[in-house]
């Protein structure tokens, strides 16, 4: 079979089907449409098979296929090569070309000229990939160009004609430059065979040859659309029919990038210039993308950015001699862009007219919504798609080469790209029943689904290649996908129950880790499941609810179990994405969801950058290798800590947390706040553990103050809220600050405290968010002053809230007391008196805002009639009761937690302390800071009374409730939203910078030509300056 196929489909078939088909199509046109269409399909399929079958042969034999023409050997005749790289790229391009021809069918159908051009163009791209002759490359370049010019005629609008004219003029200059360069090189060397040129590249330094090389490079770079000489391409992306724009953006560019890669060894002196130009293009095109409204132009900027990233990767990896990394990084990025950008362009057409800013109510078309999400995730380099793995590898290599600046550029550009693409997705998701989607015919839907499927397959292939396809990392996606499939048949509580059972079973089945992860894993799994139980209270949960919940909780479990940096990063991104999609379920939460995702990505990128530094230093990507006792490790560790602190909502970058936690659906808020935030805390603990074991660098005092600032800031802001969920969200931030503070103690006692607060906060915040969800359900408002007198109507809810508040407040005898006590004593023990005092103040503030919540629920006359109110649904109450039981266990049987905690923490960790895992009472008796604790509490009480007194005398007596609930505890001027203003300022500054940069795209074709010419001169100048 294979022999027959490989006999039938040889690489030369690409040209036979392409050119032969091109000649036959006008004749078939005369015979009638069925002949024309059938013939086109046959030729295109034949062309594709002529690349796929030889690729299989090359894969099987491991030897490239050499094709000699004219019965002579090079350099006397042209030769072509079909090796693994050529075959892989050509076959990918051809498959995508088939899919795009299908998507473009409404324009191609019956139009024999367009069909002919499409075929010839595809053939030309293959020729650029296969040829080993410089002049032949020029010919194929011109075939691609002329084919493109012709197809651009499919766009008939005013703007499309203008764009085509500019495109033709700019690319004509580029090709002319290439031709001139080729001529000069021939003059200098006497041949144009690429292999011989590469072999004899030392001889290309002579003046004429050097000019030829510079001209050739100038053309190749121009065709890859560098900033600022790329305005001509952008106009085409904007105005061409979407599927055609896709074809040009991904397929035609593929030929260019391959030609560039092929000739790159000729340009050793230019690597610096190429890298700088690509970095600038990647950063600026993604920056300008922020200001685009037309989907085509937006995707155009993204395409240009992605091409620049490919060029950058090629140049840097070649420069550092890491050619063996090229296939994975460059081909990974290439395939990722090929499939996802093709999908995005086609999808932009399927969404209908209108800018990227308009609300489309995309939720009404779940199929399109899923596809858009998938392509956006892929193009942003997020898992599980090939771009994720490629970008990881690229960053690791950049770090090995010490290219910190380039890492920053790559990550900043990726962040900007994610910002505008996810914003587009979220805007499209915003409800709008008036938006009419054009019908999505099968010829558009099939390519979209095929592209998505190919993306997933290639992502899985990357996972297998990198060895990250372990049960631990695959479980979240596998379970999520299975549940999503099941969700087509089963809905509601049944699916919910199946989800919970599957999560529990999978969590149980996964190997249980040792040490600190072994503490977090069961805690977060149990907590997550109990809170997830509340989701069953919903009659009609969103389609995403259960699959994403499974991904979220299982990915969190994966974070605790992985062994390498890559696996950690993978699981970490899964957590962020799953949480993001859970938040987007509420239409009101779309903007907070974007903010959540942006900060999550910032955190992830900081982690990546930090880890890359450490991995480059230690030479290993295993997490256990992080304990590097060397001052050079400091930047990497600081970056990683910064990433975890962003995710841990430290004061400053905390702004995402209150928005996301407040606006997410009730049980999602509970899940995020109680369970998911602990992932970052685990990271800090695990990282800190490595640091301590390594010794050396001490940043603990700074970390402690960051934690304390977060605690104080969070508490103050919680105090200022009138919205119950926002209050709880800020309270979470405050509690996370405590955990950071405890971790910063870097000692046995601090760490026990940290783990203690982790458990405490999980139980307490789970209860509070669920209780508030119940109250909001009954009263219909999140505003504290809209509640009141609920003790009678919702006694159980009020009881659980009371217990939770007491437990959190740090009042004896509940578990929070233990936490506070441990913390303060550890602070005093370490001599950090300032922090201890600040801790006492924070305790007071915490008491105050919790008192407000409590007062709002139980005090005063209810605004709404109690008759309408009832107790919260049982399914909301049961999880709360289970969590209350958890509080009880930890209060009265502290050893259940303390035993394992002590066992988990390295015994020789802190020598000054003897921890015996005794009950709390025994420890209280053994340690002296009890008076401190009491003093702090007493001081808090006095302050509270004073504050109350001031409040009561300062206004007309409307009762205690008015002071506690209705009145603003802090004047507005005392709480300027500094962080929010700072971030909004940065966001505006980015937009302003984008506006500045895009001025260069004035629309004037002649200016564009001058920029093209200027760019060529810049390339030439770079060659003159570069040391040879």
């Amino acid at each position, binding site marked *: 079979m294979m022999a027959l196929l490989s006999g039938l489909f040889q690489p030369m078939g690409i040209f036979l089907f392409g050119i032969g088909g091109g000649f036959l199509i006008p004749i078939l046109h005369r015979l009638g449409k069925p002949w024309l269409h059938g013939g086109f399909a046959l030729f295109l399929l034949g062309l594709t098979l002529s690349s796929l079958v030889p690729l299989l042969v090359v894969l099987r034999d491991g030897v490239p296929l050499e094709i000699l023409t004219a019965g002579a050997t090079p350099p006397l005749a042209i030769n072509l090569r079909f090796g693994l790289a050529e075959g892989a790229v050509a076959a990918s391009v051809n498959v995508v070309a088939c899919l795009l021809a299908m998507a473009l069918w409404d324009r191609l159908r019956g139009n024999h000229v367009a069909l002919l051009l499409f075929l010839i163009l595809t053939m030309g791209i293959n020729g650029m990939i296969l040829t080993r002759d410089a*002049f032949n490359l*020029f*010919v194929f370049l*011109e075939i691609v*160009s*002329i084919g493109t*010019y*012709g197809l651009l*005629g499919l766009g008939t609008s*005013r*703007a499309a*004609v*203008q*764009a*085509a*004219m*500019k495109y*033709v*003029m700019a690319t*004509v*200059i580029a*090709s*002319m430059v290439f*031709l*001139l360069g*080729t*001529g*000069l090189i*021939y*003059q200098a060397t006497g041949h144009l065979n690429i292999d011989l040129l590469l072999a004899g590249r030392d001889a290309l330094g002579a003046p004429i040859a050097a000019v030829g090389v510079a001209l050739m490079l100038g053309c190749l770079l121009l065709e890859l659309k560098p900033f600022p000489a790329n305005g001509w391409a*952008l*106009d085409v992306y*904007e*105005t061409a029919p979407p599927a055609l724009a896709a074809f040009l953006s991904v397929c035609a560019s593929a030929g260019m990038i391959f030609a560039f890669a092929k000739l790159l060894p000729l340009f050793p002196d230019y690597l610096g210039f190429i890298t700088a130009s690509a970095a600038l293009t990647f950063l600026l095109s993604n920056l*300008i993308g922020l*200001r*685009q409204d037309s989907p085509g*132009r937006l995707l155009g900027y993204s395409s240009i950015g992605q091409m620049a990233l490919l060029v950058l990767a090629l140049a840097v990896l070649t420069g550092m001699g890491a050619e063996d990394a090229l296939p994975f990084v460059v081909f990974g990025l290439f395939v990722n862009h090929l499939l996802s950008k093709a999908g995005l362009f086609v999808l932009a057409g399927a969404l209908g007219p209108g800018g990227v800013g308009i609300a489309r109510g995309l939720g009404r078309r779940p199929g399109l919504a899923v596809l858009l999400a998938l392509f956006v995730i892929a193009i942003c380099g997020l898992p599980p798609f090939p771009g994720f793995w490629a970008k990881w590898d690229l960053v690791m290599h950049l770090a090995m080469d010490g290219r910190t600046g380039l890492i920053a550029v790559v990550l900043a550009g990726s962040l900007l790209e994610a910002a505008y693409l996810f914003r587009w997705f979220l805007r499209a998701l915003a409800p709008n029943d008036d938006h009419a989607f054009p019908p999505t015919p099968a010829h558009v839907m099939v390519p979209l689904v095929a592209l998505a499927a190919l993306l997933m397959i290639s992502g899985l292939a990357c996972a297998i290649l990198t060895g990250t396809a372990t049960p631990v990392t695959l479980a979240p996606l596998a379970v999520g996908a299975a549940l999503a499939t099941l969700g087509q048949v089963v809905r509601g509580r049944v699916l919910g129950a199946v989800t919970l059972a599957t999560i529990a079973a999978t969590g149980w089945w996964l190997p249980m880790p040792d040490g600190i992860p072994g503490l977090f894993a069961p805690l977060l799994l149990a907590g997550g499941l109990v809170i997830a139980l509340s989701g069953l209270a919903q009659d009609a949960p969103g389609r995403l609810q259960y699959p994403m919940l499974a991904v979220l909780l299982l990915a969190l479990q994966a974070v605790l179990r992985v062994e390498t940096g890559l696996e950690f990063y993978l699981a970490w991104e899964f957590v962020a994405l799953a949480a993001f999609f859970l938040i987007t379920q509420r239409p009101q939460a779309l903007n907070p969801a974007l903010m959540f995702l942006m900060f999550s990505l910032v955190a992830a990128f900081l982690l990546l950058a930090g880890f890359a530094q450490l991995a480059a230093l230690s030479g290993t990507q295993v997490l256990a290798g992080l304990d590097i006792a060397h001052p050079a490790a400091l930047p990497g560790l600081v970056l990683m800590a910064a990433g975890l602190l962003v995710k841990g909502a430290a004061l400053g970058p905390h702004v995402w947390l209150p928005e996301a936690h407040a606006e997410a659906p009730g049980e999602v808020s509970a899940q995020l706040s109680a369970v998911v935030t602990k992932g970052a805390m685990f990271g800090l603990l695990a990282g800190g553990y490595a640091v301590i074991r390594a010794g050396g660098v001490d940043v603990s005092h700074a970390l402690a103050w960051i934690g304390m600032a977060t605690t104080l800031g969070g508490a103050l802001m919680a105090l200022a809220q009138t919205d119950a969920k926002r209050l709880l969200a800020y309270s979470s931030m405050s509690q996370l600050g405590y955990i950071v503070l405890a971790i910063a103690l870097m000692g046995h006692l601090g760490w026990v405290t940290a783990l203690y607060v982790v458990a405490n906060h999980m139980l307490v915040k789970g209860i509070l968010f669920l209780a508030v969800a119940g109250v909001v359900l009954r009263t219909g408002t999140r505003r504290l002053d809209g509640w009141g007198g609920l003790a009678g109507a919702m006694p159980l809810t009020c009881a659980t809230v009371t217990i939770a508040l007491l437990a959190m407040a740090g009042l004896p005898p509940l578990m929070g007391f233990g936490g506070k006590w441990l913390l303060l004593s550890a602070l005093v023990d370490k001599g950090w008196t300032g922090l201890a005092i600040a801790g006492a103040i924070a305790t007071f503030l915490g008491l105050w805002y919790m008192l407000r919540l409590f007062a709002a629920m139980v005090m005063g006359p209810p605004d709404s009639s109690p008759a309408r109110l009832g107790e919260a649904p049982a399914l909301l109450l049961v999880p709360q009761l289970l969590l209350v039981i958890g509080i009880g266990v930890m209060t009265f049987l502290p050893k259940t937690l303390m035993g394992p905690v002590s066992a988990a923490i390295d015994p020789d960790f802190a020598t000054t302390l003897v921890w015996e895992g005794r009950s709390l009472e025994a420890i209280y008796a053994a340690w002296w800071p009890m008076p401190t604790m009491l003093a702090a509490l007493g001081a808090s009480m006095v302050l509270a009374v004073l504050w109350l007194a001031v409040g009561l005398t300062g206004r007309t007596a409307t009762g205690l409730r008015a002071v506690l609930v209705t009145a603003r505890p802090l004047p507005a001027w005392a709480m300027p939203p500094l962080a929010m203003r700072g971030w909004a300022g940065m966001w505006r500054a980015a937009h302003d910078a984008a506006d500045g940069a*895009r*001025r260069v*795209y*004035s*629309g*004037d*074709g*002649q200016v564009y*030509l*001058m920029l093209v*010419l200027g760019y060529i001169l810049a390339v030439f100048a770079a060659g003159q300056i570069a040391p040879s």
Partner: protein
Amino acid sequence: MTVFPVSTVLMATGFGLILIGLAGVLLHRNVLRMIIGFGLMDSGVAIVLVATGYVTGGTAPIIDADLSAGDATARVVDPVPSALTVTAIVIGLAVTAVMLAYAIRLYRTHGTLDIRALRDSRG
């Protein structure tokens, strides 16, 4: 008086034409004039290419009674650049035709050939 070889004269002419064409493209606002500029550049490149293959005193690369195969490498003009040039001329023709076609379409839709009028897409 120094006698320049023909190739030098050709080179100078070719590069001169390229520069004149470039000036035409960059200085004229009328699309048709710009296309003429592109045509001049095309011709210039073709002349430069042919000039690179010139051998002083060389003859046509046709092996016949006057030119034995053994002498060929020493006495003939390099035929490759000429072959390349023919290809390039054909391509240049096609490109010029496409540009003219777009110019016609442009005039039909816009009623002008001023390149400055083509600014619907920007930023």
